[in-house]
């Protein structure tokens, strides 16, 4: 729901680019009826853009309501590509080489990343939300993003939660520790490739995925016991 006072994402994008040169803002369209389009920021200019959004008199986005994360795992994409290839053919006892167009399926891996989403509102202007997104370079070693806690104080715990559950490292965060899990915990449970500990030894009412995990646990346990008794 957009209040009439709020500019469209295109207008906001133009305003940002006028205020922060080279900001590199992209519009991420949302095709659903809500049409809640978002703005993807370049992490290098994110702090400046955030300050502009907060301090600009027309926008006055003084309230950060929500910070959340998204995990985009590495995706294998199969594409059909038309390739021109020399083909040798035997005709009339003579070998002839001709070029033919052949369809080939190629697989390539689209590298994944971690994304952080911010929802902004304005209490002063009574409008919102403006949705910001930022992406890390990859999801293994380059997972740093600038913290927006210096701009909106309410980001502090929510960024800690994203750090805890997704593993995004926020540079410039005043107190980046795990929020929900304990400090010695090594995994990031909200990532798509998180493997939960194998504690399916007692599942009296298991079904579907849990039943499969319980059966796998049982099988592994029985073979172990069998080896032990030999």
């Amino acid at each position, binding site marked *: 729901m957009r209040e009439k006072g709020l500019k469209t994402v295109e207008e906001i994008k133009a305003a940002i680019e006028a205020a922060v040169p080279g900001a590199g803002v992209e519009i991420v369209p949302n095709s659903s009826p809500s049409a809640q389009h978002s703005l993807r920021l370049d992490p290098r200019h994110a702090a400046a853009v955030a300050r502009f959004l907060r301090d600009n008199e027309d926008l006055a986005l003084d309230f950060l309501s929500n910070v959340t994360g998204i995990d985009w795992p590495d995706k294998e994409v199969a594409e059909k590509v038309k390739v021109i290839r020399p083909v040798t053919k035997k005709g009339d006892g003579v070998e002839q080489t001709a070029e033919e167009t052949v369809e080939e399926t190629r697989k390539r891996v689209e590298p994944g990343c971690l994304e952080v989403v911010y929802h902004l509102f304005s209490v002063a202007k009574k409008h919102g939300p403006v949705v910001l997104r930022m992406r890390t370079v990859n999801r293994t070693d380059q997972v740093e993003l600038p913290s927006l806690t210096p701009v909106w104080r309410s980001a502090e715990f929510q960024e800690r939660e994203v750090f805890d559950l997704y593993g995004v490292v926020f540079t410039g965060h005043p107190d980046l520790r795990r929020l*929900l899990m*304990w400090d010695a915990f090594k995994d990031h449970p909200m990532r798509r490739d*998180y493997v939960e500990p194998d*504690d399916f*030894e007692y599942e009296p009412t298991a079904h579907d995925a849990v039943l499969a995990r319980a059966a796998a646990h049982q099988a592994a346990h029985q073979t172990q016991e069998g080896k032990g008794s030999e």
Partner: protein
Amino acid sequence: MAVEDGLKVELGKQGVFVTTIEELYNWGRRSSVWPMQFGLACCAIEMIATTMARYDLARFGAEVFRPSPRQADLMIISGTVTKKMAPQVVRLYNQMAEPKYVIAMGACAISGGPFKQGYNVLKGIDRYIPVDVHIPGCPPRPEALLQAFVTLQKKIDAQHLTGQGRPRHLDSAAQGEFPVPVQGEHDLEPTSNPGVWTVPVVIR
């Protein structure tokens, strides 16, 4: 020397009160079970309701919720035990003086409940400490907690002070301290206390 029930009633009519040390001792213990004052989740709200005037837990001698484990006899595990919280719960239980009892209240405390398949919730506190009474429900009504409390009182009443199955504080060989699980890199270590919990056999 135990006195027959009929004779006891007969003597009572004559104004003679006959009892045994065991009966008197257990009567004293069960009539002043003081719970520890702590709650873990929404079940704690029902526990609070149980202590208030409408349900009045004071009728059973348990109105004094102690804010210190040193003065408490009963631990009501009222709610979800997360893996982050479990070591603290076991540590508090260790700090309670014998004789001590545990009521696991609600689906989460007895099995993990709706969060059983989560990465962060313990699949039942009975994996680390001995539970005397389990109450199912999400959350259990105050009546269910009262029922559990009466069940615990009956259990205390039936305990013999000597021989097999005597209370832990009268058995010098009994396990007095329960190992506190360590928060490891992926899960609690160990995932259960084998002296307290073994995998139940599922009969299908």
